[in-house]
């Protein structure tokens, strides 16, 4: 027995010894200085060659290293960045004046050559950039003088300023010298932060670029950490390893409330969640009255309140309120089961069986919301089964191949915040994501897309969004609430475009 006691004691000593290694490391584990921050998101950056990605998380990280021509302020209004002004010279020519005295991190001067180079690089045939579509309306870039360029578009394109917020500027000489592969591993931009190191799936470190034209950033050094598991991400915030974490689901807010050193920040997002009604598939859903009935048969606000604990805002048509062109005067569908039944009766569809497909874990509480929607539809005379497709790749394929079930859940936000990017990809005939076709809607979209007069354009969007509401190609869902966990030592509030700007953090 004595030997047994000794052995157990030995094991305990080993445990204590290994414990000793970790003991006392609380809050210092990622050894941060007072003005350093660690931000934990769900995934790692795909690329630090900013032109190789369309992924929002990746773009957020890259935005600290690279500057764009224009950008959006906290209210999401367009403001100058590397471009100080722009004007229309003719219907298809935009002239842009560039900021002078800006240097890339390697010392190279930023000028018109860089703008031309950056644009043409994306369109290089052998360059696998997923951003080609963002700039497909642009024909060419012309250098007027070292600090003036002209964009020639193929069609009148009122979205040009919005596109300029996505034109990240690369250093031409540097990229030519080191090649595309190296430019990705050791990125050089003009941004407020300089690249330090990247360990795949572990961390990306950047440090303040004190020579930045906008001044010295308050944050000295920032580390971007990918922590995929939500529980670990929350734990990292609670233990002080991370200062800012993203995508906190509503049902975890309680857990965060118990830690005094952290707070929760919320912001209605540019992302909308909708339930597409696959009209082109045929069947009962091809009938407008059935689609309207579906909108009357679901208590969207009730679901937001009960499942999302109030973290969401209803949408009245296919655009969120923080995108230009939104019309607040368009009424919501009211929850009215009686009216739904009348519409179904009028359509001669009193015995419908539908299937609703939803992913699992893509958007906050997605599966639960889908089940709540299906439950209410069934209760109100539209028998609906839920089909969960957990693997995102398969889910995307069903949408892009136009082989969805009758109802499919989808979320949408593009970093341009350009109104057309909410309607055309989702609802124009023949677009990959669109499972809807309506000549009148198509025509209005095309008109609005190329209308150069701002007032007229706004009117067209109002008309379009009203028509979309009437046609009910979706069960109109809600604007997502972005929820962050933040350490109290940070002064920071979120933006409505899902972005995190290090320059907006202070202490």
């Amino acid at each position, binding site marked *: *027995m004595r*030997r*047994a006691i000794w*052995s157990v004691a030995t*094991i305990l000593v*080993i445990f204590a010894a*290994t*414990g000793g*290694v*970790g*003991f006392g*490391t*609380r*809050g210092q*584990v*990622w050894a941060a200085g007072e003005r350093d921050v660690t931000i*934990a998101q769900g*995934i790692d950056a*795909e*690329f630090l060659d900013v032109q*190789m990605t*369309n992924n929002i998380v990746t773009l957020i990280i890259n935005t600290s290293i690279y500057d764009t021509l224009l950008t959006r302020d906290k209210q999401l209004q367009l403001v100058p960045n590397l471009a100080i002004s722009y004007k229309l010279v003719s219907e298809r020519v935009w002239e842009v004046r560039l900021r002078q005295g800006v240097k890339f991190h390697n010392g190279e001067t930023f000028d018109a050559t860089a703008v031309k180079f950056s644009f043409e690089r994306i369109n290089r045939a*052998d360059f*696998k950039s*997923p951003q080609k*579509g963002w700039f*497909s309306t642009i024909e060419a870039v012309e250098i007027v003088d070292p600090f003036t360029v002209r964009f020639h578009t193929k069609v009148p394109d009122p979205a040009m300023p919005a596109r300029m917020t996505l034109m990240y500027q690369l250093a031409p000489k540097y990229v030519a010298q080191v090649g*595309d*592969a190296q430019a*990705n*591993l050791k990125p050089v931009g003009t941004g407020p932060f300089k690249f330090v190191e990247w*360990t*795949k*799936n*572990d*961390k990306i470190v950047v440090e303040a670029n004190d020579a930045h034209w906008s001044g010295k950033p308050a944050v000295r050094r920032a580390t971007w*950490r990918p*922590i*995929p*598991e939500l*529980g*670990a*991400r929350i*734990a*990292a915030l*609670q*233990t002080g*390893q991370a200062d800012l974490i993203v995508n906190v689901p509503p049902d975890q807010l309680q857990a965060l409330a118990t830690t005094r050193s952290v707070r929760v920040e919320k912001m209605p997002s540019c992302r909308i969640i909708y339930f597409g009604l696959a009209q082109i598939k045929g069947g009962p859903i091809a009938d407008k009255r059935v689609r309207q009935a579906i909108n009357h048969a679901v208590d969207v606000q009730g679901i937001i309140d009960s499942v999302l604990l109030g973290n969401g805002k209803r949408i009245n048509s296919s655009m969120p309120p923080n995108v230009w062109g939104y019309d607040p005067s368009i009424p919501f569908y009211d929850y009215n089961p009686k009216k739904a039944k009348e519409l179904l009766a009028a359509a001669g569809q009193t015995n419908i069986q539908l299937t609703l497909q939803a992913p699992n874990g893509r958007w906050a509480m997605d599966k639960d919301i889908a089940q709540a929607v299906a439950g209410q539809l069934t209760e109100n005379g539209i028998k609906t089964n839920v089909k969960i497709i957990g*693997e*995102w*790749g*398969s889910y*995307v*394929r069903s949408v*892009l191949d136009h082989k969805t079930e009758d109802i499919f859940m989808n979320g949408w936000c*593009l970093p341009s915040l350009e109104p057309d990017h909410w309607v055309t*990809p989702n609802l124009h005939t023949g*677009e*990959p*994501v669109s499972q809807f076709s309506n000549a009148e809607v198509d025509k209005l979209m095309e008109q609005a897309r190329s209308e150069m007069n701002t007032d007229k354009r706004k009117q067209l969007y109002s008309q379009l969004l009203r028509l979309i509401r009437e046609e009910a190609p979706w069960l109109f869902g809600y604007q997502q609430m972005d929820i962050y966990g933040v350490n109290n030592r940070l002064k920071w509030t979120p933006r409505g475009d899902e972005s995190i700007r290090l320059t907006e953090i202070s202490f």
Partner: protein
Amino acid sequence: MLAYVLRRLLQSLLVLLGVSVIVFGLLHLTGDPTRLLLPLEAREEDVRQLRALLGLDDPLAVQYVRFLSRAVRGDFGLSFKHQIPALTLILQTLPATLELTAAGLGLALAVAVPAGILSALRRNSLLDAICSVGVLMGQAMPVYWLGLLLIMVFAVWLGWFPAAGRDGLASLVLPATALGAFSMARIARMARSGMLEVLAQDYVRTARAAGVRAFLVTYKYALKNAAIPLVTIVGLEFGILLGGAVITETIFAWPGVGRLAVDAIFSRDYPLVQAIVAMLATIFVVINLVMDLVYTYLDPRIVFVRSKP
């Protein structure tokens, strides 16, 4: 002996070839990756262009031969998603996985072998009962759940270890414990039963009767023989742990091959998945080979003879 090694090497190559065919076939059954690489709103024209750039337009057989002929030269191609050579990505992340796996296995052995031996020596004692309960719990707890529990207790409540990431020895403790728990239980059980079996052998009784000290009997004569089945299990466990690292790495944000593999599979990154599977299969095969050779060292009675018809 040499002939045996050569024969085993040849067999291993066949296994790897088989693995490559299966992985290649299965991956291509999962569908076109170009759609996932491009934004949702991308036009058909862009999709076609990218597909051609990635060489996915060629017949499957042509793609396979191209893959194999490059792979034997150590070139697994560019990862679709990262546009970095697949092998480079693996070599960057493999050390983290090997470190985690070795630590998990080391911890499992360090706890399980003494525990197993002790409970064999003190059969039916309180200590034995405690060990049995521990084994049962270790085997019943899913890594996922155990991982989160460890984070909650040791990172959030006690603040002893970091919750996530790879920063030095302290950050290794929780993931290695989570990963090693299951193996710990299995090894302890094997050690106990192996030891019990050996202790019941005639030679042990004889040695005791001859007055050899109990310590010497247990640790010199009995343990060496009880170790043989343990070697088998340790070899297998290493492979299982490598696979199990996928979940552990995800929970603890450990930057290893497992997480790389999960991402690669979800984004249909063919070259990267193929390279990872090839790499893991090779490690697995090599370990099995080494374990077989270790047997002959531990027990000279085990000899390899060509089976005669």
